[in-house]
Each structure stands twice: as structure tokens, then as C-alpha cells.
């Protein structure tokens, strides 16, 4: 189920799913969609990455972060790669 990723978020406050995606992306230069979803299931992210196994909620949250300019996505071989926008 996709929950509105911004439901609990304000401009200065991110939803849990968005925080989850951000925390995962901080661990690498860039990650594929599958890698993000696999990492979301790992113990180290268990406190924040709690949404359903299907992953659609995470992708909706990631797209919201793209719109807010916090992360970027690029489509190429193998699909999308997501990365944090560095200052």
C-alpha cells in the first residue's frame, strides 16, 4: 500500500519513509531501487524503515525527495540510480 509520503511531513519535517530513504542513501554514493528496498529490510534500518514489503511507499517517498531537491534519480542500465544531492 502506498501511503501519502508527505502525510506526516511538513516543509521542514520529513515522513518516516522519506527519512528511511535518506538514511539508506547516506550509506553509498548511489543505489538502485532494488538495493534501497533490500537495505530497508536490514536490521540497521529497522527502527525507521517499517512500511510494507512491496516498497511502493518508499518509492513514493523517494520521488517526493526528488521534488524537494534533496535527492536525484537517473535512469540508465539496470534502471534508476538514486543519490543524495551534495551541497
Amino acid at each position, binding site marked *: 500500500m502506498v501511503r501519502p509520503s508527505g502525510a506526516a511531513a511538513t516543509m521542514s519535517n520529513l515522513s518516516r519513509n522519506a527519512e528511511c530513504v535518506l538514511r539508506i542513501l547516506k550509506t553509498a554514493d548511489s543505489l538502485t531501487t532494488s538495493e534501497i528496498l533490500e537495505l530497508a529490510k536490514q536490521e540497521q534500518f529497522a527502527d525507521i524503515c517499517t512500511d510494507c*514489503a*512491496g516498497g*511502493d511507499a518508499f*518509492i513514493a517517498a523517494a520521488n517526493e525527495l526528488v521534488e524537494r531537491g534533496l535527492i536525484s534519480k537517473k*535512469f*540508465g542500465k*539496470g*534502471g534508476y540510480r538514486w543519490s543524495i544531492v551534495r551541497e
Partner: protein
Amino acid sequence: MKLTDWKRVRDDFPALRRRINGKPVVYLDSACMALKPRQVIDAMNVYYEQYPACGGRSIHTFGKEVSEAYALAREKMARFINASRAEECIWTRNATEAINIVARSLKIPKGSKIVTTSLEHHSGSLPFVERAHRDGLRIEVVEARPDGTFDIEDWKAAIDSTTSLVSVVHSSNVTGTVVSLREIVEIAHDRGALVLSDDAQYAPHHPLDVQAFDVDFSALSVHKMCGPSGMGLLYGKLEHLESMDMFLTGGDTVADVRFEDGRIIPEYLPPPEKFEAGLQNYAGAIGAGAAADYLSSIGMKEIEKRERSLLSRALDALKNMNHVHILGTDDIRLRTGLVAFTIDTVGSAHDVATFLNDEYAVMVRSGAHCANPFHYQRGIPPSKGTARASFYLYNNEHDVDTFLEALRALIEASS
């Protein structure tokens, strides 16, 4: 022979007039939520603008009008599924709630068995898993074949004299496959079991005759059949509805509540009021009736034919596309108008849905579609998932071709 003007049908849907990033919308997610025609929106607006009052209680003019419209909507839905009487139709929020009513309220003997399948939507299995856990019942799962069809012998083996209920998805939201419902009902009834048919994906796309199928219960999601969101329907044979326990109780479910010797003693109404506690979604019910009218005016046989034609066009092309793997049977006669697939040049179906939406304004669903068990059975983890394109009466050949063009571009860019 009736000739439907499909262009005119398409024009009934205001959402299809939108353009996103300069591109016309290609909406292929009707298996999740169908778009709404002007006729349904107008019917609901008339309620809100002309008589937005309580039904079944207030005696003023608005109250009378909404009561009549509400009752008429139930009759329309009863006709739509060919129920023998309107009282057999209970308004719910969705098919999920309809199934939960059966799972919670049907009297099921302790130690008996409920039979379901690996292909169910979570809403078709979990209410019974929980009931079994609560009341010490057994659950037996009939496994679908990889293409989403079933071996009827497996049903014969699973349903025995200890089976109290069979919960079966009539048309799968993943493979689109349609089960042999008549045969399953016959086996179940022969062995003394009742049958609940999850018609959420079947009713919007095929003629549904609950009497001909002889099901004991049927669950529908009105929002998948051009009606408003937050509306569903439970059909039940009256004898079963009458003998079931209460689900939600409160206002509108009672004939009287006496107060005797310090005790509150309810006397409940018969179905359908028995299962419709509190103020109802009158606008939703009226919209549901309008949706039933709308689909009936076109004809469910016509709609079924139209969708099969669009599905054939899509399947023929997809089968010849490298890197695309289709779920579901090749036999188009056994399919509803949807196709789920994986593409091996991308790691996740979410990439397919994102690319199609961003680059082509083509809207498909991705994930496990609330059918995780079947995805695990097929060796597809939910995080990889499948992409699903679902067609409805407002789609056209151009939609299919745009979808295919977008997939070709995706495969080229990701290879």
C-alpha cells in the same frame, strides 16, 4: 448487433482530459481504482446539492428523498449482480470490509476447515487466517499453478466434509485469471461448504450473476467499477445473512432497544440494516447505483469484449518483446483485462512504473498488489514485484500503443 461508441464513452471521463507535462493521460491502473464518469459524479452532486440529509430516519422532504434514492441504489446494485432481492445486498466501504463481515460474523463450527488459495488478495485470505487463529479453525491453501490457473482436482482434494467455507478470488488482480467458479461451488455445496467469491476484479469487467454462480457470498469494490471510492458491497443469500452474528452494532441496526430491570436489551433489524450501523455513505450509495446504471447501459458483455480486444493487442506485442515476462495464462478467454509482468533489464517493477509515469504519463501499478503469497510462490520478492497494466472501458488502442512504446523505450534505455 449493438455497436458501442467507445470514443463517446471515453468522453464521459473528465480525468482523461488532463494533460501531464504536456502529455495526455494513459490510465492503466483501473484494477486499483477505476476512473469516474460524469454521470456518477453528477448523481453524487445532486445528493449534496439537493437533499444532503439522513436516510431512514428524518421524516422531512430531504429525508424522504435521500431514503428513496438510497433504496433505489440498492435495487440497482441487486439488478447489476442479479441478486434475487435487494435485501441480500449490504453496503460496505469496500470488498475488504465485505469479506471481513463474513469472516467475523459467519457461524463456523470449531475444528472445521476454511479453504482458500495462494492467489488471493490479502483481503481474501487474512480475515480468515485471523478467524482461524481466534477460533481454532484450520486453513487449507489450494496452490495456483504458475500461470494463475488451478487444477480442479486440487479443489476436490482440499474441500471435504469438514470444510465450512471456501474463499476464492473469482478473477485475480495479479494474473487476471478467472477461476472455474461454477465447478468449485458445485464441489463445495456437494460437501456442505459455503462459498465466498471475491468479485472485486470480476464484477467490473464481466457479467456477474450471483444466482447463476450459486455463490453464498460475493464481495465487490464499487470503486473498481466506476463508482465512488469508499464504497463496496456484500452480497449474501438471505438465509445466511439472517443467521450471521452482528458485525458493527449501533444506530440503524435496531428495531428497538428496551430497558428492563436495569438491562439494555436490543432487538436487531433483519438484513440489510442489520449490517449497516450508523449514518451511511448516502452519496456513495447513490453514486454506486449510478455506476451500475452506467455500466449496464453499455452492457457488461460489450465491456468484456472491449477489454479482451485491448488485452489481446497488448499481450500479442508483449509476448514478442525481449526481456518481458508475462504472468498469467495464454488463454485469453480465462483472463480479465489486465497483465502483470516483469522486465529483466531493471531490478524492480517500481522502476517500470516510475519511468512510464515520468516519461510518458502512462500510469501502471507496481509491487506485489497485496498478493504477496503468489509472488513468493513465483519466486518474485515483493520488493522486486511485478508491473501491472489494467484496461477498462475508457481505454483505447492508442493507450495500449503508448504503453508499448514506453516499454520499448524503457528496455532500450536500461539494457
